């Protein structure tokens, strides 16, 4: 059984990671850190550097939690998380969330809404 966290290198991702780590430690489960890019542009601010991901794994290890990273090739962030919730022995999905207005959701879409509705396992949305 594992807890999957969708990580992006900003404060929401950090908050989600902190919560996911404490949950994994408490429940004694493995932590799967997912970070992928939809490859829409040449620099993707949502893609985390290798060194960042390694630092996260190290932090988890210090807390006594088994952790690993996963990168999905070519799939969008939400896409990859939804797939992971199907495929893995996933206990829950942890994501960071921010408030978007209704017009914002109409124009730019809401990743969180998509994940909430389409994932097959429980989703925990952490506020920054």
């Amino acid at each position, binding site marked *: 059984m594992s807890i999957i966290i969708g990580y992006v*290198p900003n404060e929401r991702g950090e908050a989600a990671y902190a919560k996911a780590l404490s949950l994994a430690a408490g429940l004694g489960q493995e932590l799967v850190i997912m970070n992928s*890019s*939809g*490859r*829409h*542009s*040449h*620099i*993707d*601010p949502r*893609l*985390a*550097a290798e060194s*960042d991901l390694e630092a996260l794994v190290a932090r988890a290890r210090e807390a006594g939690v088994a952790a690993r990273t996963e990168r999905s090739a*070519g799939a969008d962030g939400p896409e990859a998380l939804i797939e992971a919730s199907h495929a893995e022995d996933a206990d829950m999905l942890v994501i960071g969330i921010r408030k978007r207005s209704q017009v914002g959701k109409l124009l730019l879409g809401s990743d969180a809404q998509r994940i909430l509705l389409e994932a097959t396992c429980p989703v925990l949305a952490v506020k920054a």
Partner: protein
Amino acid sequence: MDILNDALGGFDVVLQPANLLFCLLGVTLGMLIGVLPGLGPAATIAILLPITYTMEPASAIILLAGIFYGAQYGGTITSVLLRLPGEASSVVTALDGYQMARQGRAGAALGIAAVGSFVGGTIAIVGLTFLAPLVASFALDFGPAEYTLLALLGILLVSSLGNGSARKAAVAATIGLLLATVGRDPVTGVSRFTFGSDNLADGIDFVIIAMGLFGVGEILYNMATPPSATSGTPQFRRALPTGADLKQSSGAIARGSVSGFVLGVLPGGGATIASLVAYATEKKLAKRPERFGRGAIEGVAGPETANNSAATSSFIPLLTLGIPANGTMAIMFGALMLQGITPGPGLINEHPDVFWGVIDSMYIGNVFLLLLSIPLIGIFVRLLRVKATILNPLTVLITMIGVYTVRNSVFDMFLVIAFGVVGYLMKKTGFPPGPLVLAFVLGGLLETSFRQSIRLSEGSLAIFVASPIAVTLVVAIVVAIAAAPVMAWLLRRQQARTDATLHTHAQAYQD
């Protein structure tokens, strides 16, 4: 010193506020385009051709020229910071430049690239200033026979010396020649290959082919390959090289300027080949070649100087002889013809303002580039965050609007789309579009001159060896046919080595 008088007269043209503005606009746009991988100066110039209709000839060429050598600067930025070459001529820079960035010396790499580019460009312009009138003075005795041989030489050289397979380039050139025959026969007025269509009766417009092949074709190709997303940029403090860096790279810069100048003038050469050769030269001449590939500053200084030098010097054959040296110059050729100016031996006398205006604008453009490149790097890099799903349709939209302004014809728009598909297929299968455009542009000249020559000589081929210039050209053609395979093999070897190290696709780029 007549030359200096004329050269200074060119500044009269450039220093008009409108032309200064166009120069600035051109180099800025060029740098932006250079930063974006997948969009090259050829495509941009092709897309902006309709805008140049309403401009003065000198202004138009100043703008387009600025885009060309500005793009050589921009490509370096992403090469160094992200290992993502923005232009084909910056691929080699990524070898050592990225390593320097990882060692925390991104600022030095970018700074030395800017300095080298400025020096290379300026030296090439000075060479251009003195060499161009010299060549043009020989070119005054050109008659139809000489023009025929010149056009033939141009087509041959570009077909055989370009990047990639010579055979495919030759096929592309042949298709270009075929397309040039569509329309009315220039001498007898008979319709050829028009299939009864009114729209094709006047022949295919050069702009349509250029915009379709280079503009839409390149965008389609980009859409087929998703961008390689990278995480943020490595931080750099100031893009300035230290005194020690400058001293270490001075040799590389000097050599790069000269080799770039020579390779840019050669038809089929160009900025990409110049950068490859400069890198290979620096590596060979270095005291400790094992430094290369690990952050050797000469590996950045040499190629960057060479590519700017080559980009500038590739204007010489165009402005003096009317032979485009590579695909992008072929589009410039077309741009000049749109303005009613036939580039060639007569240009320096008939339109000295265009000739010298363009050359002098390069001095100023280089200064702009040096001033702009260092502070604006951060802004340019932000451009890379824009999603391809926004950038590509926007470019296609601009292209389509541009097409419509050419002849108010929807048929033209469909034609552009058709050529776009052809361009995409050509890129995918490795046929370079440059020779096609070049052959198309030179094909009309070739045919008209040939028929005039035959008329003049009343059927005898002796006219092609009648004058000393003609004989020289014939000898040059023979030499080109003989020597080209060797040169092409040498250059491809270096390119293969670069590809192996960087794991990039050579075909994705175009000079």
